[in-house]
Structure formats: structure tokens, C-alpha cells
């Protein structure tokens, strides 16, 4: 059972926010990069399926610049048997359509696969479109937000999240799944620092996009710019000292000045 897991490098949630540097490739500090946390559930699912089956190989695939090396190696540290990084340093392609096309081409080049796994969405853009798009390009069955996976011979029995419950589905292998962050794979395994250290010494093959025979991957959507929202001019007024009765009347009058409907307090 060969499983491909697609992982993404995103800006760390605790890294300083900068609208000019929204892509991992823009940053200089590796500490600002983290694995898209939803992808960890997908890796966990892949590892568990292989462990339960007793045979198979999990390969992590990542489209990203050299800053994404950390992410690929973390996938290896978690237990993936191999990893491939597709070099994306100059253009930093982030359009969903383009990325999906490149990933589908990469899967085609790898050739031997039974299952393609994605996280349910990404931490930064969160479009949750990658799994359906790749399945479309590869002409494979797809199930999104999968909580539970059961491999039965050549078939796949999954439970996916729908509003208000779950739905059972049966898919023919090979298939594409996006793994939900709830259910069976809710808690991705811990990666010990020792494993990270060991993994950081492994060589990860780097593929160029040109080698993949992608065809036309021009973005179908363009966005102009990202801006920080303007800082709020208004500040909190805190009434802490003084007589409670006075403080209340002060508060009420301030709220009235702001044009608030105070109902019974009028």
C-alpha cells in the first residue's frame, strides 16, 4: 500500500505578522515556518493505515521553497518513509489551481500510489480545495473531511463528516482523501526531538517543476494585494476609580455620546 501525503509549509502562528511576507519563501528565519497543522492529521492517518496493514510506504510530497525543507523533514521525523520536495523558490506559486495541477503531475510521475491524502484545509488560506481538484486532474474518486478509514482489499470504506453527522462511503482504490482534524486521527503523534534531529540529516530529493510535464498551470484567479487592516483609533475607556454611582452615570453618558441604543437606560 503506497500512500502519498501532501504537506504544506505555512507561516507559524506565533511568527510576527507582515502582509508583505505571507509566503514561507519570503521569510529568512526558519523559526517562522511551520507544517500546516491540518496536514499532520493526514500524516497520522497515512502512518496508521500502513501500520495496520503491516506493509506499505508513506511518501510526503511538498511544493515549496528551501524554507519548506523543515516541513518535509518533520514529515520524515513523524514516520514517513520518504519525502519529495518540488522546488518552488522563485515564483512561489500559491494559486490553488496551479498548485493542484503541479501536485497531480508529481503524483503521476511517482506513479505507484494507492492513496493520496491531504489535510482538510491549510492553515493560511484555508480553501480546502486541493483534494477535490487533484482528484479531478487524476480522475480518481474523492472523499473530503474523512474521519475514519478502513481498507478492505481493493476497496476503501470511509466515514466523512457532514453537517450534523457522518456519512459512510465506499471508494475504489486508488483514491483521494482529505482527512478531518476530528475523529480517529484527531491527535497526530508526537515527534520527538531526537527523531527530528535524525531526520534533519536525511537527504530529500528535490524535483523541478519543469521535470514534471505539468503543461499549462497559469493561475485562474489573481489577487492584487494583502493589507493589514487599519489600526483602530478608538480606545477603551476604563472606569475604575471613584464612587460606583458616579462611575455608572459616567459610563451611561459616554455610551450615549457614542450613539448607542440603551433601551431602558434612557
Amino acid at each position: 500500500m503506497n500512500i502519498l501525503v501532501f504537506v504544506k509549509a505555512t507561516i507559524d502562528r506565533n511568527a510576527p505578522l507582515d502582509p508583505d511576507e505571507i509566503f514561507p519563501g519570503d521569510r529568512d528565519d526558519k523559526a517562522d515556518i511551520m507544517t500546516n497543522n491540518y496536514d499532520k492529521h493526514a500524516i497520522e492517518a497515512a502512518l496508521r493505515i500502513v501500520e495496520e496493514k503491516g506493509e506499505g510506504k508513506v511518501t510526503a510530497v511538498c511544493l515549496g521553497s528551501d524554507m519548506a525543507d523543515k516541513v518535509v523533514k518533520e514529515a520524515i521525523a513523524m514516520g514517513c518513509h520518504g519525502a519529495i520536495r518540488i522546488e518552488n523558490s522563485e515564483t512561489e506559486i500559491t494559486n490553488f489551481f496551479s498548485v493542484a495541477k503541479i501536485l497531480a503531475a508529481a503524483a503521476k510521475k511517482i506513479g505507484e500510489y494507492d492513496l493520496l491524502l491531504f489535510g482538510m484545509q491549510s492553515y493560511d488560506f484555508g480553501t480546502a480545495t486541493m483534494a477535490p481538484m487533484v482528484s479531478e486532474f487524476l480522475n480518481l474518486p474523492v472523499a473530503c473531511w474523512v474521519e475514519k478509514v478502513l481498507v478492505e482489499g481493493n476497496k476503501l470504506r470511509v466515514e466523512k463528516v457532514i453537517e450534523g453527522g457522518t456519512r459512510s462511503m465506499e471508494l475504489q482504490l486508488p483514491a483521494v482523501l482529505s482527512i478531518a482534524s476530528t475523529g480517529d486521527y484527531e491527535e497526530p503523534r508526537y515527534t520527538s526531538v531526537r527523531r527530528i534531529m535524525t531526520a534533519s540529516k536525511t537527504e530529500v530529493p528535490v524535483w523541478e517543476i519543469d521535470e514534471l510535464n505539468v503543461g499549462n498551470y497559469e493561475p485562474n484567479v489573481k489577487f492584487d494585494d494583502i493589507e493589514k487592516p487599519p489600526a483602530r483609533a478608538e480606545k477603551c475607556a476604563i472606569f475604575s476609580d471613584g464612587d460606583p454611582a458616579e462611575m455608572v452615570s459616567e459610563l451611561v453618558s459616554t455610551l450615549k455620546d457614542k450613539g448607542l441604543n440603551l433601551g431602558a437606560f434612557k
Partner: protein
Amino acid sequence: MIQEILMILQDWFWTAGRDAYWPRGIEIYGAQVGFLVYISALIAIFAVLIGIYRGMRVWFHGKYDKENQGFLSFLFSLIKRALKNLFSLSLPKRLYYLIGTGITKRKSMPWISFIVHSMIMLGFLGTIIATLISTSHEYLFAEELLVGPLYIAFSFAVDLAGLLLFIGTLLAIARRYLRERDFYPRAGLEDMFLLFLLFWVSISGFFMEASRILYGLNNVPITIHHTGVILTNIDFEIFSFIGYPLALVLRAIFNPVNSQIFAVHLFFYLSHLLVAFTGAAYLAYGKFFHIGVGLANIVLNDMETPKGKLTFNSDGITKIEDFTFLQLFEASACMKCHFCHNYCPAQDTGEPLSPLKVVQDVKNWGKKQYGFIRSRKNVPILGENQEKSGLTEEVLWACVTCYACVNSCPHLIKHVNMIVGMRAALIEEGCVPGTYTTMLESVYNYGNIWNQPKRDRINWLKEGNLPKIKDSDTKLLWLPGDTLAYDPRNQRVARATYEIFQRAGLDYGTFGDAEKNDGNEMRRLGEEALFQMLAEENIKMFKKRDVKRIVCSSPHAFNTIKNEYSEFGGNFDVVHISQLILELIEDGRIKFTKKLNYDITYHDPCYLGRYNNVYEAPRKILGKLLGVRMKEMPQNRKFSYCCGGGGGGMFRETPEWVKTRISEKRVIEAKGTLDSINEVNGETVKAQKVLVTACPFCTSMLTDATKTQQLEQDIIVKDIVELVLESMGDLPFSTYSFT
């Protein structure tokens, strides 16, 4: 008259002798019985040897001191270590354990435990020695040894030993099966069996003696007439102060004839033999093994390593072969005394963890893999076998590393090292509860346990400037630690510390937002690589700024910097905040002006008290505060209860089987103590009840517990630093000197 008494005494002294009284001609213990003795002795010796061999098979599959060390060279190094330990300064401490004083580490009724154990121990040793002496009296000295005063002393001592054994075993049975049934839930049949053996040894011994004397009384009386005094020449047997009266009683009741006396003697002789040799054969099995192995363990045990320094196999313990020789040896020394079991806060709250069971599980797993002949190498003890071995993930993660078990063990077993070693294996496999994963990843990525950005580390400081260590002249470094920096409750403690330092005019510095986690919890969770990373980075930072002295707000950081950083070349002068504040008070730089009205009790943080023996510094500070009435909780100092926050427990999700959390139990105990302060004083003055502690984890855990137990209105949890600041009063800054 006096002269006559002296004569009688003299007569007793010199005619006394160990005699069977019956004539040689009717010797009943002829060849057949003698043969039986030798056979049983041989069987017993054989059984003991087999038991020792079996134990050794397990022990020597543990790790040796060095990789690829040969068996003989390791044996040699063991002997060397034993000799070194015996001729070192730790000898008094080892002797202290040898005489069974370790038992006084018991939490409840320690002295009764000690007395009962001493009775059995002295009785056991005394009767064995007596048997050896009387055997050599007959076979080596041709019945010439035990005569005169020596015999009198001997017969008195033997009866004393027998009596001690008799009372001791009865008390022990009563404690196990009547009075303290809850204390010994796992005592079972083994204890009953062994105690019965010892009990019967004493009973049958007394009856043998009594029947021997009775025969003498019936058959050998040669009356000697002094003036007005009638004596028989075996009156000196009165020094067998149990056997002689027993003989008199038997004669009065049954008035037996010679053949009946023989029958009684034979019955007790044979049963004595059987029971004694069964006990001897059992020496190398079960509980009795502690007599030999425990002794050897006390000799071999490492007593120099500080308590706070955790030594464990950082590769993770997954199988018997991963334990060290000494760990497996220690496990064999465990005699299920239940002290750790009853002392463990996790066990107390209904967790599946019992330190006793962990040690026993390790021992039994070793025995299962290495039988008399069969050996199964490298069978995992965790993972797929965790249900069979009993060392499940729930058991291992339930430990709060409070050190209560190690502290209570009379045989110096280090449960925490075993548990953390096995945790390291779970970490390596990634079998970690989700909440720990978040915490560990946060430490790896952001250097703090609270999953917060580095740059927010000094957000707790609302006004003023935090001095930098590079601008400090004294190079005194203050490490507030992660919890003081990020946890909203503890940020108040951080601000209080800052203000105290300002008012005391202390010259100090901090790393600001460059500070990193100390790594103590990482090591306790078994994440050794992360700990080493943090330790090395911290040591590098300390050395770069040429730090002279470190003051830690967290006892956890204090413990690891003090005891563990030296492994990586970092030897620093480190104190806990309470010690520094005490120094400042004694120097007169902190003055208390405001009278508080508090009833207080103090909770000892494990990593300050039990791990590092800092019990007095916080208490001295509390004693100097004005207007507080302090009372100790029933569980204090080395017997202090845990808050449940250590060893990663802070981040553990409470499992459904825990009804009352560790912290909640502690708060309820504090409530009881604080309520009784008013009862004692009989005062009507209503004072605020305060539970004081000196650790950010404790503050946080106990504060939460007061909320969940609806005690918020009654008890406030405060860090000792906050109390000090309050007591310093509201004097304006300018009245204090700045240096």
C-alpha cells in the same frame, strides 16, 4: 541468708548446662530423624541457590556500567563499588537503613511500623543464631560450650528472641488483616503464609523447650537441702522465662508421663523443622528475598547523586534488557511494604498508577522472560505487551514525579527513574497524550510551555523597565520562568517579585524575552533530547552574560539548574526566590511594616521541599510576617502532598476515573487545617484564610482547585512573594534607597 542466696546463685551458675535430660539409652532422634534434617537442609539450600540463580539471570540481563562490558569485569566493578561504598562517608546512612530505620519513612504510624519490624527482625536473626550456636554446642564442642553463665545468658536471649518473634508476627498479622487492611490492599496470602511460618517457629520452639524441661522436672530432680530452702538442680532453667513457666503449666494441667512428653516433643520438633526449612527454602523467593537483596542493595546503592538529578536510560526502556543491572536488582529487593503505594498522590486519587505495582511488574516481567532455563530475549514490555505487563500508558503518564515513592522506600528503590525511562520510550514512539504534544511542540518551537509567542514573554510587566542582565553589575540573574510570564494568575506573582526587587534596591538582570524554558519538565516527560537542547542553549546564554548567581521563581527551574545542568558543564550558584527574599529580609533590605490579618498554611512544593530540602526558608519568611497565624497541614515537609502539576501533570487532561483531583484533595486538606486555626484560638476575629505556596505550578493548580471545589469564598491561594509584598506596606517608592 544472703550467703545462702549467693550459694544458690553460684550453684545455678556453675551447674547450668544445656541438657536433654533424657538418658542416652532412649534417644528418640536416631538415624531416621537425623537423616530427615540433613535432607531438608539440603533441599532448602538447593532451593535458595536456585532462587538466587534465577534472580541473577534477570539482573545480569540488565545494562552493565559500560557498553560491551564483560560479565567478569562487571562483577569486579560491582565488588569494587560495594567496597567503595562501605568505606565512604555514606556508611552511617547505609547502617541507618540496614537496621531497618528506613521504615520510619512511613507516613502514618512510622514508629509502630519500625517497632514491629524490629521485633520480627531481631526474633528472626536471634533464633537463627541460637539454632546455630546450639548445633555447634552439640557437634563441635561436644556439649561443652553452653555451660554455666554462658548457658544462662543464652537461654534468656533465646526466649527473648522467640518472644519478640511471637509478638511481632502477631502484631504484623493484626495490622495486615485487621487494623490496617486499607494500608496493605495487596498483602494477600503470601504475607499470611510467611507470617504463619515465623509464628509457628516461635510457638513450636517454646513447646520443644517446655517439653524438654518438663521431662527434666519429672525425672531428674535431685533435691538439695539447704537450710529451709528446697531446690531442684534444674531451677536455673527459670532463665528460659517462657519455656520454664510453660512446662510448669503443662505439668499442672496434664501431668504427662514420659512417653506423652516424647510425643509432644516429637510433634513440635518435626513441625519446627518443617516450618523452619520451608522458610529457609523460601528465602530467595517472594518477600523474604529482601533480607539478602535488600541488604546488598543498600550496600550497592548510589547515595551520592542528588535527589533532583534524574538518571535514566534516555534511549527509552522498552524491554527488560534496557533496565540497568541495579534497577532490576532494586526491583528484586521490593517486599511490597506498601509505603510508596500509600504515599503516591496519583494512586490516592484513583489513577491506575501504583509505584509498588510498577516495580513488581518490572520484576515479574523479568522473571517471565528469564525462567530457570528458558530465556526470551528482547520481548517488549510496553506497546503490544502493555496489558500483559501491566505497564500501560495510563499508568506511566499518571506519574507526577513528586518523588513521594522514592522518598518513602526503605530499600532506596528509584521508581521515578524507571517510570521516566519508560516514558522516554513512549515519547520516541510518539504515544503521547495530545495535550503533552502541544506543550512539547510549543517548547521546541517557541521555547515556552504555554504555546505563546516569544515576543509576548515580558507582557506581564505593565509599568517600569525590566533590567537587562548585561547592564547588571552583580550579574544576578532572575529567571521568572514560563508560567510567571504567560499565565494570567502567575503574572501577578511576576509583578510582585518585580516590585519587591525594586523596593529592595536589588541590582539584578533578566534575559527579557530571550529567556527559554529550563527543561525540567521535558526531562521528567522523558523527552531527553529536548531537555539537552534547552540545557545547552541556556548554559550558553548564562555563560555569555557571565552570570554569577541565578534566582529562580520556579522550583522546577531551580531543581534542574542546580542538579542537572552540571552534566552539560553548567555549574551555577542558584537559589530559589524564597531563599533570596529571606536573605534580603535578614540583610534588612526588606522591612515588614503592614500588619496583615491572615490565617495561613503552607504547601511545600515537591521540587523545593522533597527534591532539594528547602523546607525552612519559606517558613522563616512566613514566621516574620506581621499578623499572620500559621498552622501546618497534617501532610507537611517531606510528607507533603503534591499539587498534581509536576512531571507534566499540569498539562494532563483529568481522566474520567479521577473523581477528586490531587490539587482538590490538597485544597480540602488546607481548608480543614485553616478552619481549625480559629477553633484553637477561640477568637471571634474573622481572618482571611490563605493557602501559601512557593511554586507557580502549585499556585495555578491550587487556585483552580479552590474554584472547582467551590472554596473560592473561603480560601485564597497566594504565592509567598505576594504575601511579602503585601506585608511591606504601601510606602511610596522614594522612601526606599536605590543602588
